[in-house]
């Protein structure tokens, strides 16, 4: 290991150093949001429970990515790569969901018509 010379010590930082208060604030925000997401299940919001849970998870994920993963202070390329990956995940899920929902009635119909013949290893209780 070589020790930096005096001249090198005055060089600019290689990367942004995250301030300690920001790290602590993000940590406490994440814990509070975890409590919030558990508490949200005590309230019946019908179909909105999933939406609330996913919204809270996305806020938490954004906090982790922006601060713990440095994206806010990083080259924009890295954040863009993460967003493209998330966009592809959304695309995969959406297209598969469209397909499966379209064919589900046929599956149900087939299942109901074969229910009495098929085995009893799973379900039917």
């Amino acid at each position: 290991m070589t020790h930096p010379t005096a001249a090198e010590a005055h060089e600019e930082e290689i990367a942004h150093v995250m301030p300690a208060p920001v790290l602590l604030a993000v940590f406490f925000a994440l814990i509070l949001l975890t409590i919030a997401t558990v508490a949200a299940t005590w309230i019946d919001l019908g179909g909105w429970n999933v939406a609330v849970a996913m919204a809270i998870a996305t806020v938490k994920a954004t906090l982790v990515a922006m601060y713990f993963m440095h994206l806010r202070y990083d080259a924009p390329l890295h954040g863009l790569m993460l967003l493209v990956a998330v966009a592809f995940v959304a695309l995969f899920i959406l297209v598969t969901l469209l397909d499966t929902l379209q064919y589900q009635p046929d599956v149900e119909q087939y299942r109901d018509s074969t229910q009495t013949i098929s085995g009893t290893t799973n379900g039917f209780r």
Partner: protein
Amino acid sequence: MPETYTTAGPGEHGQEHPGFLAHHFDTPRQQFNAGKLGMWIFLVTEILLFSGLFCAYVVYRANHPEIFIYAHRFLDKNLGALNTCVLIFSSLTMAWAVRSAQRERKAALAVLLSITLLCGFVFLGVKYVEYRHKWHEGLLWASRYEPQPEAAGHEGGQHQIEPRNVGIFFSIYFVMTGLHAVHVIAGMGAIAWVLRRSLRGDFNRRYFGPVDYVGLYWHLVDLIWIYLFPLLYLIH
């Protein structure tokens, strides 16, 4: 990330080339940014790997919501929340370890990496308790799904009629949390490697890339759990 470093001294390139700087990089900053780009490309492939499982989850839940409502009560919300907090805390100590590496606080770096590693063990310990409980109650993946009569959910509701194919919920549960646990173990291995190198004194304010990259990986493992926890444990 090469284990061996060129030891080219001053003069070979007409400028100083420190030992931690690989031969093909001009500056420590260039080396750091190149490594970071590589790590982000790897993280993108990890997200896409998990996307297949999230896709299976969404498709199955959209078509058979009754199975998820019935089966999720067999998961212990408290243990899931505990593990969420453990992972969030370990992400804090990991981010702080990167900060310590950047500021050359070597003792703090070693301590924080050790705490992060310890949190990994706690997470796996809690996971073991959960898996063992399900094993005893026969709540396994679809082909081995044979619930014991005493297997009651944590929120009562024993009078519910069991829907068909509940085992598939547990298939999804075990594959998603299992693959995540594999990532936790891999992350712990990487943290142990970085901890060993930090104790050896490899890192300084111009060379802390491996700490940062391992940190990014660990945060991604946390990020995936942030979604797994509400999707599997907190179904309403």
